[in-house]
């Protein structure tokens, strides 16, 4: 960051350091989000450029990685906002039959402990399938859910990431929950059955 503020020849070395320190970590997260290693590489490198362009706004008291990551996540969301990826909720598959009932009964259920390894593997595979569909239909909502789970993001952090007002952020989170219920219905059904 000092090199960034100073400018000049130190920038090249500092950019290389940034790449060595954070590329692997950010690339991994980015591949998960966009599903393509080359696109992810572009996004991460664009992020490093943005980091440099915005370094004057970096507040030294906070950690660097979360700040860099927030810039990358905004870039990911911008990319996902491009048309044709988002599917309106009303057009999505509704919960049907037993799966719908199982989700409706959720309030009475507990998180499954998983009796054995086979059940766990089935659950993991089912979650992977459902999550894949969720990512395809509503990538922004799925990603934000994963970031909340992984980083414990707050309303304020999500609002800043999405560029939304507090009210709109709360509505977005509510939509996340609704969409999760739809897209993860099969997994819920499996996870909370045989209890």
């Amino acid at each position, binding site marked *: 960051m000092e090199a960034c503020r100073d400018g000049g020849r130190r920038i090249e070395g500092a950019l290389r350091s940034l*790449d060595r320190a954070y*590329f692997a970590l950010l690339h*991994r997260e980015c591949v998960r989000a966009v599903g393509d290693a080359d696109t992810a590489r572009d996004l991460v490198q664009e992020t490093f450029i943005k980091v440099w362009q915005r370094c004057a706004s970096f507040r030294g008291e906070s950690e660097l990685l979360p700040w860099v990551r927030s810039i990358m996540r905004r870039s990911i969301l911008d990319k996902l906002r491009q048309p044709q990826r988002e599917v309106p909720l009303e057009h999505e598959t509704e919960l049907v039959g037993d799966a719908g009932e199982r989700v409706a009964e959720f309030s009475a259920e507990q998180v499954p402990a998983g009796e054995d390894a086979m059940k766990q593997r089935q659950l993991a595979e089912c979650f992977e399938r459902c999550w894949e569909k969720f990512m395809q239909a509503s990538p922004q909502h799925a990603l934000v859910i*994963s970031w909340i789970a992984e980083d414990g993001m707050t309303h304020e952090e999500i609002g800043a990431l999405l560029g939304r007002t507090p009210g709109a952020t*709360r509505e977005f989170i509510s939509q996340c*929950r609704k969409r999760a219920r739809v897209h993860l219905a099969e997994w819920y059904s499996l996870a909370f059955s045989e209890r």
Partner: protein
Amino acid sequence: MGDEDDNWFDALAGRSGSEAAAATDAHARAIRAAILSRSAAEEIRAAAEDPMREAALIARARAAGLLPVSGGRAGRRRTGWLAAAALASIAVGVTLQMNTRSPTPITRGAASGIVRIRAPDPSHLKQELIRELEAAGVHARGYEQLGRQGIDADLPMPVTTQVREVLDRHGIALPADGVLQVEIEPASTP
């Protein structure tokens, strides 16, 4: 967003909720556990250090104006497309017929640092070039604009033998500034 949404959100984030909310949290806690388990199991790995990748990053930084630009690299890139359209007719006059290993003749010429190629199947040649450049460790970006197929790539400097072989194979001169810009137009069928 109601109380249930709040409880769901807090449970998803790993924050403990109230006793009354415990049942409705089950849903979110299960998602959280599945996501964390999934993340831990993933095998996506990138090298911590990669000279090619760093070279591409430095080239991007130059193009973005963060580093000194050698040979007008950034400006030429930004205005390349306008120049390409304006100079297309001029380029036709300076195109050169060259020997090539391709089954059909390919005409090449250069204007404003852009290598111009004519091929019976531009899209196929573009893909072939990208594939070969990628195999040589260069991140090449393909595009289509104004009816032309094109490729942009920042070559690692100094250029590796593999990259030089790819360029030689297609009769493309090594760009002095390391910025490869290729346009491929359809050749008229005899």
